């Protein structure tokens, strides 16, 4: 159950070509996919280059359509490479993990939903929306699904489309280079790109497939520093790299090549180099071959991670180290000798590491390669408990009030939810914090207090945060788009731009509270809160890089969103490995419409099949809070267990793109299967 999953294939739709063959040929010739942007007018900007998907350079159809098209192209390409027929895929326990941060008023799970439906993937489809680390994380979580036994094959990757609005936002931040970017080189700034990529990750031995590489592990961290700038000493990047090495059971000296995030911006490249030297030491770090693929592919945003992993996989297979297109002379403060030849250079290596960083401070690193992993025993798994819980919506500001609402079956208060975060956190600068961030920070802060946790010293790096949210901030989107209309594309509201991302609230919360451990923003549509809790549980059980993870969810009502939440709500639960009265006995995950399967799975894993009470049948007074209501149910269950009103409780939700179940017990006796 814990072996390193097998990577059996991959597929792309990229600026270097659609389909592996074209992509690989162009990559090996050292070509760049960066060119003058033809899709939209760039005359108002000081730069006019970008890396559009080959063949789509002038295609200005709706980005949602393009996303879907890029995704399907890459998915089919990946399945072909893995020699996995569609029919075969549909008969396996298949899942989809997608990195996507949609920029419109769509719920972020909709793309994954559509792709999974079209491929008839019956298992769960999880979307990660953490901007530039989205697809890197998606691959990591895909590995988890296999390792945890929730799927036998996962299509993991990411998709992004370069739109005028995105271009305008980055341009206004002053991070775009005038000419094609030169990562680690003399020109400052990055070049935007787009595309889609997927890797096929499988459990070994289930079918006659060629194992091209093993996915050994991943690491996650947060900078807790700034909305758009990385922590200058690369501390967060270093933590993610160490986490990945640890998860992979590998040491730094075993890494034969490193694919850096290497955007080419002033802030990223120096910070990243600090991190590499910190993890690998200046000797090893100085001799470790490293490069950035962004000179070839531009910065493909939510698809960057997967495309860069695929670049590495292609080159690794050919006995080559990918090169840094555009690099000529090293910039001061960056790596002095990245792989910068015109073409990939010969290098034999068995293990590679790929790293990405994102707005909001999230960092993710992956370790993969042909090197045979050591077997990991299941005895290393830790038990997971719940140490804190809090709930927040109009009329509810504690678990007790939550219980009253459930039991009284009374309708929710119509009053507007008031919070005074400044009094709760007097020493934190909360200027400009938006509503979602404010609510999320409030509940996470209270939940940690409920758990008796003070974030000091090491605790900060060993505390994580997984947020379940459904959409980009509608208010920030509105402000951003209005600024484009009123002030023009050369002068958008950059504060709004930084707050638009679905992961903005998680980033702001982590920054306010100084949470630096593994963190992410995920969605399955309805039920995202419970999904965040389930993910937190499996991460704590199998990983060693955190001692507690806060699973949280937030919904924000907005007049600017057509079908958004009906009320403001937020919920946070602290899961940990220190024993408490409430334990996570089992978790279950299945595809949408498979609630029974998810529940059965949770029961089986908990070993408590017959003795479980259920809260699922309780009336749900929290309609219109798609991310939070499932977390409320969990919080309510925790409250009931703490008060001794039940011994074993099941909480389950039929989410939009996955069915999720969790069994909690206060019995003190559990076992895993």
């Amino acid at each position, binding site marked *: 159950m814990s072996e390193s999953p097998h990577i059996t294939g991959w597929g792309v739709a990229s600026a270097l070509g659609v389909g592996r063959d074209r992509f690989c040929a162009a990559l090996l010739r050292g070509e760049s996919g960066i060119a003058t942007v033809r899709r939209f007018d760039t005359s108002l900007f000081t730069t006019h280059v970008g890396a559009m998907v080959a063949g789509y350079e002038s295609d200005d159809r709706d980005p949602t359509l393009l996303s879907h098209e890029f995704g399907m192209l890459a998915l089919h390409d990946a399945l072909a490479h893995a020699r996995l027929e569609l029919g075969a895929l549909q008969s396996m326990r298949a899942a989809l993990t997608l990195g996507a941060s949609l920029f419109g008023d769509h719920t972020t799970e909709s793309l994954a939903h559509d792709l999974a439906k079209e491929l008839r993937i019956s298992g769960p489809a999880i979307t990660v929306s953490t901007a530039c680390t989205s697809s890197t994380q998606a691959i990591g979580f895909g590995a988890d699904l296999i390792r945890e036994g929730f799927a036998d094959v996962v299509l993991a990757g990411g998709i992004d489309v370069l739109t005028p609005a995105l271009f305008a936002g980055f341009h206004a931040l002053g991070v775009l280079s005038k000419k094609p970017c030169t990562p680690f080189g003399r020109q400052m700034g990055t070049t935007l790109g787009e595309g889609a990529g997927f890797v096929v990750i499988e459990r070994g031995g289930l079918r006659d497939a060629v194992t091209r590489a093993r996915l050994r592990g991943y690491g996650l961290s947060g900078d807790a520093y700034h909305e758009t700038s990385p922590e*200058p000493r690369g501390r967060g990047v270093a933590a993610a790299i160490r986490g990945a090495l640890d998860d992979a059971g590998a040491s730094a000296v075993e890494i034969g090549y490193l694919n850096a995030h290497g955007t080419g911006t002033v802030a990223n490249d120096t910070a990243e*180099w600090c991190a590499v030297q910190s993890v690998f030491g200046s000797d090893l770090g100085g001799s470790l071959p490293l490069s950035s693929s962004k000179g070839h592919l531009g910065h493909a945003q939510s698809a960057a991670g997967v495309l860069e992993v695929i670049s590495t996989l292609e080159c690794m297979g050919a006995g080559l180290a990918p090169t840094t297109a555009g690099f000529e002379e090293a910039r*001061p*403060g960056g790596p002095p000798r990245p792989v910068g030849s015109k073409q990939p250079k010969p290098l034999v290596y068995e293990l590679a590491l790929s790293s990405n960083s994102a707005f909001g401070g999230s960092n993710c690193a992956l370790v993969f390669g042909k090197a045979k992993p050591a077997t990991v025993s299941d005895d290393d798994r830790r038990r997971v408990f719940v140490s804190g819980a809090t709930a927040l919506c109009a009329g509810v500001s504690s678990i007790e009030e939550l219980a009253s609402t459930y039991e009284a079956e009374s309708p929710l208060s119509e009053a507007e939810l008031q919070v005074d975060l400044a009094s709760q956190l007097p*020493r934190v*600068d909360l200027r400009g914090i938006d509503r979602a961030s404010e609510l999320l920070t409030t509940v996470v802060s209270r939940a940690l207090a409920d758990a008796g946790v*003070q974030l*000091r*010293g090491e605790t900060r790096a060993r505390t994580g945060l997984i947020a379940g949210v459904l959409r980009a901030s509608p208010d920030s989107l509105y402000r951003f788009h209005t600024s484009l209309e009123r002030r023009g594309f050369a002068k958008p509201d950059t504060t709004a731009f930084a707050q638009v991302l679905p992961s903005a609230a998680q980033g702001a919360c982590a920054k306010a509270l*100084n949470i630096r451990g593994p963190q992410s923003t995920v969605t399955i549509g309805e039920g995202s809160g419970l999904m965040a809790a389930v993910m937190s549980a499996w991460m704590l059980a199998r990983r060693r890089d955190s001692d507690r993870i806060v699973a949280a969810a937030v919904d924000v009502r907005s007049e600017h969103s057509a079908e958004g939440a009906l009320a403001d709500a937020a919920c946070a639960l602290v899961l940990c490995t220190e024993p408490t009265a409430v334990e996570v006995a089992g978790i279950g995950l299945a595809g949408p419409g498979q609630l029974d399967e998810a529940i059965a799975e949770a029961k089986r894993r908990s070993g408590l099949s017959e003795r479980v009470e259920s809260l699922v049948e309780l009336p749900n007074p929290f309609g219109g809070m798609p991310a939070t209501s499932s977390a409320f149910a969990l919080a309510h269950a925790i409250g009931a267990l703490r008060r001794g009103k039940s011994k074993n409780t099941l909480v389950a939700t039929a989410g939009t793109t996955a069915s999720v179940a969790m069994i909690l017990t206060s019995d003190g006796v559990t076992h895993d299967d």
Partner: protein
Amino acid sequence: MSLEDEYRSLRHGAALSRMDHVGLVRVSGDDATEAVDAICSGDLWVRDGRMLQTLILGERGQPVADVYVCPDDDACILMFEGITTEELSACLAQYADADLAIELEDLRPAYELISVNGPYAWEALSKWLTPDVIGLPYLSFYHFDHGTCFRAGKTGEYGYDLAVRSEHVERAWEDLLELVGALGSGEVSLETLDLSALENGFFSVRHASVEGLTPLELQLQWRVSARKRFPGAAAIEERRAKGMERRLTHFVARDGVESGDPIRDADGPVGQVTTAAFSPGIGGVTGMALLDLSVAHPGIDAFFVPGPNVDRPIRTVSSPLLFNRSLLVDPHRHTYATRDETSDPPLWLGSLP
């Protein structure tokens, strides 16, 4: 070096100084931040690895110490001028809750503080430390083998304060002296640092101060919290309620103006000179004047210091005075050796009255 030479080397190269007048302590313990918060006037909205400029005020609202608060994991490093470490300790004892769990460690003499300031200070540092120091943002710090590098400075140029372990400081001084020597510079005195600070409008707790001045008059409200309790808070509230009457304003003059001189206009007194010094950068006198609030604005030519023979006209100006050369230097692209100042705008865009 003469003051002029020192000044030139600081403003155009990189100058080295000893900072024996600056205190350095670490406050640690579970309640370190809370204790520091209790004595400082500003909101401690500052992250690990960053620095915040704030003040410690006396009961009458007058600045008593100029402080950088530097959170370092859960401890707080304080770099301060104006009081001794004993006085700081007494301040904590007086104003921080007695129950707070804290420890105060004087980092001297285990460490010595030296400083490098100038448009090419980063170049000296990138050779003495590692090249990635150029990525350190203003008001940030990090630890290296033999000490801590704080990027701060009160001259308006790139500035780095180095807390170096005493056993390494002699060697460090030699190495840095050689490095700044290659940048056309050498050691500069506190006087030169103070002059540079005055030109750039940096508050100095050592400048002659006039009794009864609070952060309101001194234009330091930005270092004062609008919401928390701290020593001197009541006095400031009282002054606010009463209304500010005067404000510190920057000025320039040709010559013959000194600290303490009265300032008048055609109708009568308008204020007083609080600090004045000759600036080689402008070829005249620069300083600060406490003026009546109604006329405490830059751009006024109507004032003068009355003299026995001749009145000395003064011109009020905006801070900072100079177009610092550091604004034109990009560590990612420039070096001292390849600098070309011929096409640079002048150091001072104004003129003397």
